């Protein structure tokens, strides 16, 4: 060829597509379907105000006379409510969209907090070592030996009793994020610490130290990237767990209030009506919750298989 | 009398889309009580040969073709339960690293007794008595006490002695030892080898010793196979192979031994690396590293043929030989 053609460097997406991960992704229909469903649910949740036909937070749009309409494929339905209405007369479809948004938001923020705390503590414990390290890891053991859900239930119950329901409901979302976010840091801390200990011995870290880089820069720029893939795998599972925890807490009345329901609180309010035949208030949000958690777990499983060469495919 | 007769053994490893050949038409015989060394670099197919004889290849490896006649029966065609009754019984194996071969949660006694009772109807007591006798044979002090100990309570050398004792438990016809001292301290390597040789000779057990160490082979074995990239390239009596190697690769291996070099001079290494199994060159697999390679070496693979006192797979062996005779006479 006589002319010099400039070939644009492949974009991130192209590189990802061609990588080992991309290859295994394309060959795994379960992963593909899971990702499509997750993206679809996430998009609908993010754009809930645009997608939803009603605003479930606007009292003007709610009429108690509309309560407990069944979904449109069942006799006695009102055609304006796709999945029927809940006990307060809210359009269930819109409420689910807003609820999914809250569940996802709380799950992601809580995991971000877990990751931040855990990575910071893990880096410090691994890099500093010595007494501080053994103290932090002992704390991690103790923290892990207490179930997150138990700690969260007691913390939220006491908080609720202390501040009263009204104040609690106002700040429920922050309480949930903090309590789920704080309790699970040891997962990250252990993984990161293990990588730090492994990487610390390697020459490039000495090299960086000789060049006069500070410990913070060495840790963040040099060591942290090496623990990215386990962090990724943990995070996926943790998001799924956080969403379940949030739903469980809300179901117990220790989370999002019925006026601003997440999927868990929606299921909870529907549970009172399940025996009178209004199954859909519980069942439809329940299905959404399970599908959301399931696709995240399936993606997590796939990711673990790809990123961890020691794991086995069944 | 022939104990083991391997013909055209071909082993492949299944990959994502196809397969790679790990062993390419290996043939050799072993007489009763004979000791055979298999030598080569790591990745040449020595260990795979050992595990194939036991029919213990782990996935994705599989025997693609060939026969392995052990006392006249073909191991390749045997059912898993027939094979089980041979393993540990008539054919025993010594693994490379004694630190990981013994099960950490079972006592030495349990691991010895279960081996005996897997093949013979014995009471716990009778089995323990045999175990103690065998432990004594491998010079384990106070063997009665060892039975109750866990592997982690013993040193590496001690553990390998126990593995040898387990191999001898059922008076096998053949022991396959896969690099039995590589994982051990240098100071005890010679002891273990000596013990193994002594026991094989006194019990008239056949031995296949898999190693990368030509020095060990020359002390331990009567015959030697040299493997390269999944093929046997030279086979014959150990003394002749050591003293007068025919294949350029074997010559290179022997020239690389420390005792072949004057102190102070660098070791003579064979240039380059052995090819990976997925990218074996056309023709003779050794041709890219061979100083004698000609055009036909790059296109046709040499068959193994009788030459002088040994069998060798090299097109140019006669030319090489005359070169060398000239060198000598000059």
């Amino acid at each position, binding site marked *: 060829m006589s002319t010099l053609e400039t070939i644009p460097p492949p974009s991130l997406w192209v590189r990802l597509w061609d990588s080992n991960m991309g290859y295994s992704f394309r060959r795994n229909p379960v992963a593909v379907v899971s990702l499509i469903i997750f993206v679809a649910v996430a998009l609908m949740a993010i754009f809930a105000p645009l997608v939803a036909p009603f605003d479930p937070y606007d009292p003007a749009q709610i009429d108690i006379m509309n309560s407990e309409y069944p979904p449109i494929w069942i006799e006695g339905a009102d055609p304006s409510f796709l999945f029927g209405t809940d006990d307060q007369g809210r359009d269930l479809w819109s409420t689910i969209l807003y609820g999914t948004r809250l569940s996802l938001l709380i799950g992601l923020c809580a995991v971000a907090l877990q990751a931040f705390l855990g990575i910071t503590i893990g880096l410090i414990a691994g890099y500093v070592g010595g007494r501080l390290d053994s103290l932090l890891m002992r704390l991690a053991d103790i923290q892990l030996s207490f179930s997150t859900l138990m700690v969260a239930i007691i913390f939220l119950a006491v908080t609720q009793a202390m501040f009263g329901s009204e104040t609690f409901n106002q700040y429920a979302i922050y309480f949930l994020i903090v309590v789920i976010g704080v309790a699970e840091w040891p997962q990250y801390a252990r993984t990161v610490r293990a990588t730090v200990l492994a990487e610390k011995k390697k020459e490039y870290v000495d090299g960086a130290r000789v060049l006069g880089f500070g410990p913070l820069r060495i840790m963040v720029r040099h060591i942290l990237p090496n623990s990215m893939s386990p962090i990724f795998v943990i995070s996926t599972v943790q998001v799924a767990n956080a969403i379940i925890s949030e739903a469980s807490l809300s179901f117990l009345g220790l989370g999002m209030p019925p006026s601003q329901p997440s999927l868990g609180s929606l299921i909870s309010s529907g549970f009172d009506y399940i025996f009178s035949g209004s*199954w859909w208030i*519980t069942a439809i949000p329940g299905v959404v919750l399970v599908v959301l958690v399931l696709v995240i777990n399936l993606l997590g499983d796939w990711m673990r298989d790809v990123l961890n060469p020691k794991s086995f495919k*069944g | 009398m022939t104990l083991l007769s391997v013909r055209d053994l071909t082993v492949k490893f299944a990959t994502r889309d196809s397969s790679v050949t790990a062993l390419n038409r290996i043939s050799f015989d072993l007489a009763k009580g004979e000791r055979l060394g298999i030598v080569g670099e790591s990745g040449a197919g020595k260990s795979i040969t050992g595990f194939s004889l036991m029919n213990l290849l782990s996935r994705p490896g599989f025997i693609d073709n060939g026969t392995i006649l052990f006392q006249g029966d073909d191991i390749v065609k045997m059912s898993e339960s027939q094979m089980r009754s041979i393993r540990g019984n008539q054919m025993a*194996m010594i693994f490379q690293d004694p630190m990981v071969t013994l099960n950490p949660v079972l006592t030495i006694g349990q691991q010895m007794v279960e081996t005996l009772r897997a093949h013979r109807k014995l009471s716990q007591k009778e089995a323990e008595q045999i175990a103690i006798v065998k432990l004594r044979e491998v010079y384990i002090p106070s063997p009665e006490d060892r039975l109750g100990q866990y592997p982690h309570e013993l040193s590496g050398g001690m553990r390998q002695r126990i593995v040898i004792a387990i191999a001898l438990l059922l008076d096998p016809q053949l022991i396959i030892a896969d690099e039995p001292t590589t994982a051990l301290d240098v100071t005890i390597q010679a002891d273990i080898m000596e013990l193994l040789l002594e026991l094989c000779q006194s019990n008239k057990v056949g031995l296949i010793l898999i190693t990368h160490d030509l020095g060990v082979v020359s002390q331990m074995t009567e015959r030697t196979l040299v493997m390269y990239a999944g093929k046997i390239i030279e086979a014959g009596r150990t003394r002749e192979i050591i003293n007068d190697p025919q294949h350029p690769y074997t010559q290179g291996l022997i020239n690389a031994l420390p005792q072949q070099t004057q102190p102070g001079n660098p070791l003579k290494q064979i240039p380059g690396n052995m090819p990976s199994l997925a990218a074996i060159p056309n023709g003779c697999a050794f041709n890219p590293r061979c100083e004698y390679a000609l055009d036909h070496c790059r296109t046709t693979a040499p068959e193994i043929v009788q030459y002088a006192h040994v069998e060798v797979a090299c097109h140019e062996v006669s030319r090489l030989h005359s070169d060398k005779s000239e060198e000598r006479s000059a």
Partner: protein
Amino acid sequence: MLAYLVKRVFQAVAVMFVISLIGFAIQDNLGDPLRELLGQSVSEEVRQELREELGLNDSFVIQYTRFLGKALQGDLGTSYFFKEPALDVILKKLPATLELVLGATFIIVGFSVPLGVYTAIRPNTILSRIIMGLSIVGISVPVFLTAILMIYVFAVGYGWFPSFGRGDLVHVFGYWETNFATLDGWSHIFLPSLALASIMLPLFIRLIRSEMMEVLQSEYVKYARAKGIWPWRIYFVHALKNTLLPVITVGGVQIGTMVAYTILTETVFQWPGMGFMFLEAVNRVDTPLIVAYLIVVGFIFVVTNTIVDLIYGLVNPMVNLARMGA
């Protein structure tokens, strides 16, 4: 061994100390004991007098010491609602919860080991794929949803099982009345136990499977095969014993998690255990009962974890308990 035990018990005591501090802080800040005792229409003077009498004006340390002293004697205060010692209220509810945990544990242990081992040994059979598929669905369904579904299908729909309560109980001793003595008791505990096990069982199947698969790749399993050991002995003696070591550790943590899940299960099935009671206490701001629950649950966690650590040490020959204590 003894040194290790002492060290472990010392740590357990330290954790209990922290829990008691938290309990006291809650006691101190949550609710007003005077209002509970006197009602609202009492003059300020009388209130002050009583405050002094109850020691509410003493310093934090003195009050905490008093709280701790009483707690050690089993006095965790009197429930505002039941007008009974809080610890008694909880101990009466404890058997119901423990039996639920026991039922679920039987289901989990009974099924997770065979299914986990099977899916590890035969990873490619259709049955294994079905088990693995169901198990990932299982860990994705929250306990309370499983419980609701079970009630809807098996209690309301088919009417095979009762939907709430404990049914006929047989007194054993003390506060302990058991479900396991009558058919009615069994039918009442079946669905709640199953619901409680529903998220743990798949978790353990997956854990046992992945640990077992790793062990099956080990040199010592290959070596056992080379010795001609029977396959079942390789799976259930050589491999399973090594598999169970990490499973025991995780199991200890999960027992605690299961106590948390009892709150959910008991709520859905209206099971009169201490989890159900705890939520009622929260709604009634029954502070002594909340604190007592915290301390009892903390105690259960600490004790199970200590026991699990000791069992691990006994099962694993590589852990030298004597040396670890040093």
